[in-house]
């Protein structure tokens, strides 16, 4: 079965610094979703990538899917306290379109 491994597990950065979160799949990715979760809350959809080499940006967050479609990265430029939360990557894990998720990366941003 497919597994998604995220790194790092947690990250503390100073406000204004850049950071990168990685998501590595045990199998070829046929779609990769990035979500953000505040503690105890639901998941907020950030971006979806499908094609090898694809890159998408939204405000100060950029996500990429590598050419081999087995790894994705999420990059935040000039981090702000509002970026704090848990970032989760998810990928279709079955024939019915349901998602499997990584364990998440907890991001803290120090003012």
């Amino acid at each position: 079965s497919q597994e998604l491994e995220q790194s790092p597990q947690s990250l503390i950065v100073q406000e204004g610094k850049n950071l990168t979160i990685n998501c590595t799949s045990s199998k070829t990715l046929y779609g990769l979703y990035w979500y953000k979760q505040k503690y105890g809350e639901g998941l907020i959809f950030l971006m979806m990538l499908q094609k090898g080499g694809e890159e998408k940006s939204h405000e100060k967050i950029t996500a990429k899917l590598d050419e081999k479609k087995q790894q994705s990265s999420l990059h935040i430029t000039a981090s702000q306290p509002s970026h704090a939360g848990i970032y989760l990557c998810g990928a279709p894990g079955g024939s019915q379109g349901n998602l499997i998720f990584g364990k998440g990366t907890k991001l803290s941003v120090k003012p």
Partner: protein
Amino acid sequence: EAGVAQSPRYKIIEKRQSVAFWCNPISGHATLYWYQQILGQGPKLLIQFQNNGVVDDSQLPKDRFSAERLKGVDSTLKIQPAKLEDSAVYLCASSLDAGGKTQYFGPGTRLLVL
């Protein structure tokens, strides 16, 4: 456009009691999902509905968990009897249909079993 609604937001029960969660998906979304998220883990699919039919319940502990989506709109997830290890956040999500469409999540129900 209204998002996915869930209730209650929080629930505390004792083991062996029963509990039910409710979800109303985004209007027009045919596919509805229930996920269980244990602290420190990513969400894990429990059951997936397409309209009012079940398409995947392979990871649902059927001896204690049940779910229904009778009219193809809102859904209820029930646990009876609850165990300590059922303490988790229960997330409902919906998408236009299955097969790669983006899933949108509700705020979740945080369950604590004592």
